[in-house]
């Protein structure tokens, strides 16, 4: 652990981001990759019993999904039904969670690392055709991935009988069309099949009947990019990094009112304060200000505040969940200083979810829009004092109990995600919001906000 008591001065622990930091000039090329040890882990893995990779390395490493849910990767792989082929590995590169931008960096700057992770994982689970679903907006990422795939093929790391092992693997790269919901794994599969991207009813789970109704594993870009390092270091060794059941490192996309926004790969277990304030990480709040509140794990998560209790909480997925009912989610930490009006932030988030609801289920389709409209009123000076309670009850009809992990009347967690800002307003800023309503205060000059001149920096 790199955090020290006193002034925070934690540093990065670069594993997955090492190459792209060390060789910014050619980290994405085959040469750059192989010169820095690339494909060696794959070469070694091909000599191992495939089953042992999942059980003895990935599971032993304690690797948990980096896409949002934090589900143990080894366990997920073990759900594949025996003797049912073909199986598919689908890489979730849709990265749509607001202010999450780590997968993009990995795709653009270290595509071979992802391909190596895919290759090892495919070998481990018995898959001969893998799919990468990349966010449509990642034009450069797509180009580099395609080039990497071609080069890997030409160099014999993909294709038939790879490196003489008898193992075959091809990769299909698919550009998405721009819907947040297509990052949800079952919607992603429908979209990949050419259908409208809407989450599917589970069961069956994708591991049993996923892409084209075949057993399918969906993993995040960062999750798979970590796999070669687990092979290299050994699962047990990797598990020594991190804290409790949050092993290893994670890349946090830090944004908002910090001096040094950006992606930071840190060992799990440092605190939010470390992340936000360490000079080599966030570098503190802008203008020497204080944290009013922050969103610890992507827009879907409930918020935490600038209190010591919250800032000193460790980056431990289970701890924050159990203690505060929030999640580390996709690893996006958004920081807001004291100039921020939380009602306006809540409205912008709600607007995002209302816009991105796929429309499949009633509570989300209708409820997110309702929440958005009420939050608009509140943040724009048209709120009624009873509106916050109304929102809470509307939220309760989407996510009964208003807790995290979400319980939901919906199919997927997008609907409940829209409730997170409401619950957070209620928990931490109830007085402020009700006062706004009573005084008909506007969060910002409406014209300024509408013209995009918001001090949140969030475009519409």
């Amino acid at each position, binding site marked *: 652990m790199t955090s020290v008591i006193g002034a925070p001065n934690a540093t990065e622990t670069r594993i997955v981001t090492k190459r792209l930091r060390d060789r910014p000039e050619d980290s994405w090329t085959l040469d750059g990759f192989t010169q820095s040890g690339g494909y060696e882990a794959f070469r070694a893995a091909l000599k191992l019993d495939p089953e042992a990779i999942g059980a003895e390395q990935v599971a032993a490493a304690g690797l948990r999904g980096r896409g949002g849910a934090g589900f143990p990767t080894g366990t997920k792989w073990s759900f594949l039904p025996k003797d049912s082929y073909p199986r598919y590995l689908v890489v979730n590169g849709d990265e749509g969670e607001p202010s999450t931008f780590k997968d993009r960096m990995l795709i653009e700057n270290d595509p071979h690392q992802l391909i190596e992770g895919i290759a090892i994982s495919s070998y481990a689970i018995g898959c001969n055709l893998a799919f990468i679903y990349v966010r449509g907006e990642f034009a450069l990422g797509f180009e580099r991935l395609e080039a990497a795939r071609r080069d890997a093929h030409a160099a014999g790391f993909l294709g038939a009988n790879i490196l003489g092992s008898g193992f075959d693997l091809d990769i299909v790269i698919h550009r998405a069309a721009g*819907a947040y*919901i297509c990052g949800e794994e079952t919607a992603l599969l429908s979209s990949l099949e050419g259908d*409208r991207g809407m989450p599917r*009813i589970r069961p069956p789970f994708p591991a049993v009947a996923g892409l084209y109704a075949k057993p399918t594993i969906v993993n995040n870009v960062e999750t798979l990019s970590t796999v070669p390092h687990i092979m290299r270091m050994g699962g047990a060794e990797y598990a020594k990094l991190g804290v409790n059941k949050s092993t290893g490192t994670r890349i946090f996309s830090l944004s908002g009112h910090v001096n040094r926004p950006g992606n930071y790969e840190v060992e799990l277990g440092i605190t939010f304060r470390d992340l936000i304030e360490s000079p080599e990480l966030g570098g503190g709040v802008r203008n020497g200000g204080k944290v009013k509140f922050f969103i610890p794990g992507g827009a879907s998560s409930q918020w935490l505040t600038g209190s010591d209790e919250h800032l000193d909480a460790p980056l431990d997925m289970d701890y924050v969940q159990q203690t505060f009912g929030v999640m580390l989610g996709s690893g996006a930490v958004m920081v807001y200083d004291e100039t921020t009006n939380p009602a306006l932030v809540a409205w912008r988030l709600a607007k995002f979810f*209302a*816009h*991105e*609801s*796929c*429309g*499949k*289920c*009633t*509570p989300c*389709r*209708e*409820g*997110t*829009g*309702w929440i958005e*409209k*009420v939050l608009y*009123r509140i943040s724009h000076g048209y709120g009624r004092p009873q509106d916050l309670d*109304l929102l809470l009850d*509307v939220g*309760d*009809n*989407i996510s*009964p109990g208003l807790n995290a992990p979400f*319980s*939901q*009347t*919906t*199919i997927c967690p997008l609907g409940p995600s829209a409730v997170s800002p409401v619950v957070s307003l209620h928990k931490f800023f109830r007085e402020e919001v009700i006062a706004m309503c009573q005084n008909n205060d506007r969060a910002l000059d409406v014209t300024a906000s509408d013209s995009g001149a918001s001090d949140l920096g969030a475009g519409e």
Partner: protein
Amino acid sequence: MKDEREIVTVTIDGIEMQAPKGELLIRVAQDNGTFVPRFCWHERMKPVGMCRMCLVEVEGVRGMPPACTTTVTDGMVVNTKSETVKKAQDGVLEFLLINHPLDCPVCDRGGECPLQDQTLAFGPGESRYVEEKRHFEKPIPISELVLLDRERCIQCSRCTRFADEIAGDRLIDFGERGGEMQVITYPDDPFTSYFSGNTVQVCPVGALTAKPYRFRARPWDLSAVETSCQTCSVGCRGSLESSSNELVRLLGVDVEPVNHGWLCDKGRFGYEATHAEDRARNPMIRRDGSLVECSWPEALDAAAEGIKRSLDLHGPASIAMVGGSRGTNEDAYLWARLAKGVIGTDNVDAQIGDGLPAEVVLGLPGATIPDLDEAAAIILLGPDLKEELPVLYLRVRRACVDLGVPILDVSAVDHGLSKYASATIRHLPGEQASAAREISAALAPLIDGRSGPIVVVLGRSDVATSAEPTVAAAAIIREIPNTRFLVALRRGNVRGAIDLGLAPGFLPGRVTLDAGAERFVAAWGSAPAEVGLDTAGIFNAASEGRIGALILVGADIVNDFPDRRLVRAGVGGAGFVICINATVTEAAADADVFLPATVWGEKAGTTTNLEGRISRVGRKIAAVGNPMPDFRIASELALRLGTDFDLETVEEIQDEIARVAPAFAEVDAQLLKRARDGVVLPLALHRDELVLEPRRIPVIDFSWEPIKPEGPGEFEVVEFEVVEPVLEADASDEAAAEEESALPVDISNGAGLPDAQLFVWSAQHAAQPTPGRDNYALRLSAGRSLYDNGRTVASTPALRALIPAQTLRVNPSEISRVGVADGESVRVSTARGSLVLSLTGDANVPAGVAVMPFNIGETGVGDLVDVSLVVTDLRLETLR
């Protein structure tokens, strides 16, 4: 299908119940009397769990799973009424209503709306929504027949799933997302489904409305009767509704063995023909060369006189009867008794030259529609089911797509089901027999160990080719072990008409003249001994002056018979023509006596579908003017020819049929009234398929049902009434009553009639060779289009516009061979005649074949076909 699933115990709201393992919870609850509210779930579609209305609590399961996607397991404990569930239901209904326009007073669904009903029963009663609602332009057409009001849509995807899963026409889908999500059509691919009306029926709100019904009635003004569609011989079950003595709607009723609740658009909207402007209201007789209206007694006397004259001068064989395939069984039976028992002629044919000989129809081992579901394979050798028997098309498609039954397609040209076939045998029109010889070999890999019967859907694929090649093919296929046949005849009650003796060589109840002679002489007093003529034979004889009296029962004979020249010569050459019809058709205009008949919707009785399943037809309205039901007309004519049938009601006729007609043994009025899904003949073979229970329908799911004041949560037992036909008393009735007639045998005491053997087709069929086609000719394949000039479509304003333009489709290579442009007109000549038609290239048409649907356009196939030839070969010439 036998359910072999393990039985488990489930507790729902504290009540223990047994259910098959893996069954959907919502269905288990429903079958046991617990109504879980729902919008998106539909019995006949795959669950999607979208609306979230059916959330329940299951012990040991986190959150609230939807009952419509949850399957039951042993020991499952479910709560559908807890506070938590109630809150979720309130929530979902409130959400559904926040953007709903609530324009119930002007909404077609208002009063029978599942959204209204379930809000009342399960909803919060009050909305907290003060924001502006979503707005869309109201309503937009999504097809010729259906309009969409996006503001009312609750995004349940019933319509889109119907189009995709059931109809195979994925032409509507969702567009946009979130609150903007809406049903859309594809700009280049309009929603031209033949089944579009079903989307209106399954829509749980008033978002989809059907043009013919929009704003025509309010649900509380409607009254309904259960009936069977007679537009084609699938016999789909429906609920026929009227308001102020006007038919306004036909809704499908879910009958497992027949239609699963679906209707085709022609059947659904065809009721408009009942109210056509040109319906004849009064009888007419020819006076000074023209038809003039007269009283019933006058007309009946004149008709009887015409028959009597011919009978006296030339004997019974000089009299012929054509048609009768659109009436009820009771009509058919009395027409048969009039012709065969009273007049004594066997020149009787309900088919109009476009069907198959009665020996084939009656003599092949029969299949039922549900047999398709469990078939080892389905062989298609016959008409394009999508065009001719649309709901059977849905069923075959389902068997293939959902149940994995392989299809072997034996056809001359691509048809609606071709794309689902696992194997295809292509033949030139007329070469069915040689194609049939290849079937065994083609079938083997398809069956590949599958059990179940091989169901053959057999019929005439086109009217330009005679029945002969199909008969020859049937004789060959019959030899393949385990085959059973669904004979695909088209007209509504053609099967009932044949079963009841409206075919040369047969007496009612599937017996030949020989086999039934003794029995029917005993029952009726006499029966013909000589096998008579079929329709073509009758018109040939008539054109040669050998028919003294021709009785045309229904049908627009000049347009329905494949050979127009022959039919005109026949009608023109007949000594005396009696026409019984709803409108004055071309042939009727030449008649000596015209007798106006009631039609579907105006009379009760039964009908028989292509399986041989008898089901009830309901009377919903009284006819306008003075038409009579056919059975009454037949009785009146018999009376005037000296026989009093003494049958006053439909039930009495049914009872007589059950006593007299061997295949109908036991199928009396009582049984017909009680058999929920109809009765398949002969009962002896199908007794275990009988369901003698009233229909149970959950109150809310079928939005057309009357709302019960107690609210949902229960089931209504829907017992449809068979309305007795009420005839306006008229003078002839009284006259008839006065006339004492001498019945030869007292058949009211039917016991002790001699036995008669049911017919089995055992004759070896010697296939006649089909003439070869020379290289310059194209062979015509004249199938049908669902929308054609037939009366149903032509008299239905909503459908008339959908009749396709006439064109001759050929392989593009033929177009270049003739040297014309695509779409250009050419002269088309056959042995019979010549026409100018536009030519369209279509790569799906094999070279050497020309395709043109029958009965489209002013002139067409009927002017090119000579029914004495086996095939119709045509030549093309440029007009330049």
